């Protein structure tokens, strides 16, 4: 009798545990199927006067960050000072993917807020963004020397994300 009386309580506790776990998950963060897969190839014009192309193959042998940004993106504004500070440390090349933006707006933005990027490439129609599974700007990919995506940050890079998630991985990859 006593054991039976506990059943509703146990069901309640079970439900509570599941709901509590559910509350800690972020439904906006969709795990990328591209982690540990080769980064999709691209061949895009750079965002500068020369307009030279940059290919994925050009980054071969380097550990680097691909940061998807746009001048119309509000969250990028929050992220930007963190990136500018980080770029001064010269840890690794940061390539900007200027996503569905206008050149003039993008250049203006960099002029105003500083340019943390080794270079930026122009994805005006968002085609390369689709290849990388971009669904919200900003997003950042950590790519290793063999051209594989090792980590994806969805949403702005905060100082915490940088210290806890990105830097340990970068050090590990650069050491290897």
């Amino acid at each position, binding site marked *: 009798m006593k054991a039976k009386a506990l059943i509703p309580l146990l069901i309640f506790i079970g439900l509570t545990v599941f709901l509590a776990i559910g509350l800690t998950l972020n439904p906006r963060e969709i795990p990328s199927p*591209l982690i540990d897969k080769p980064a999709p190839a691209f061949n895009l014009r750079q965002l500068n006067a020369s307009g030279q192309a940059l290919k994925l193959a050009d980054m071969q042998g380097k550990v680097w960050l691909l940061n998807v940004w746009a001048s119309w993106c509000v969250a990028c504004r929050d992220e930007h000072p963190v990136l500018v500070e980080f770029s001064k440390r010269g840890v690794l090349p940061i390539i900007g993917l200027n996503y569905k933006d206008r050149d003039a707006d993008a250049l203006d933005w960099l002029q105003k807020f500083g340019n943390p990027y080794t270079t930026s490439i122009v994805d005006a129609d968002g085609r390369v963004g689709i290849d*990388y599974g971009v669904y919200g700007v900003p997003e950042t990919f950590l790519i290793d020397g063999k051209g594989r995506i090792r980590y994806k940050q969805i949403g702005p890079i905060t100082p915490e994300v940088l210290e806890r998630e990105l830097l340990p991985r970068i050090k590990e990859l650069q050491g290897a």
Partner: protein
Amino acid sequence: MKAEIVKQPSYGFFFRICLLLILSMHTGFAQATEARPVADNPALEARVDALSTELRCLVCQNQTIADSQAGLAQDLRNQIREQLAAGRSEQEITDYLVQRYGDFILYRPPYRPYTLLLWGGPALLLFGGIGWLAFSLARQRHQHAEALSKESLDAARALLNASGTPKQDRT
């Protein structure tokens, strides 16, 4: 005259709210029609629609790519249209998108080991429930038979026999 002046503001407020609601509905409508590109090939458009209602928009996650007005959804619809026009099959395009965005983009979850509970769960609950019901009914029937065991029958008879003269027993 005065009464009318007092009345007017409240009427005006209500009217304005209604107007606002109607207008906001209307802008939604206008957007929906604007975003739809000119269909020069109805058969192709039908296929684009059919496929994009099976796909989840990643920006507004409770909408399909067909319903969503998010920029990404429009881009993906254009991709689907382009690829269908280039002769690729629905399955190929679905694979192309799953490769980039994961199974999350599918509104119809695939049959995989990790979706076993999802697909099998309702059947599990149904048959589990039937099993439990059958079990508890059988046990109840068993308890009824037990309740009429020899001792209790004897006791019941004794009580019934004695019940004719309850007052005499007490005095």
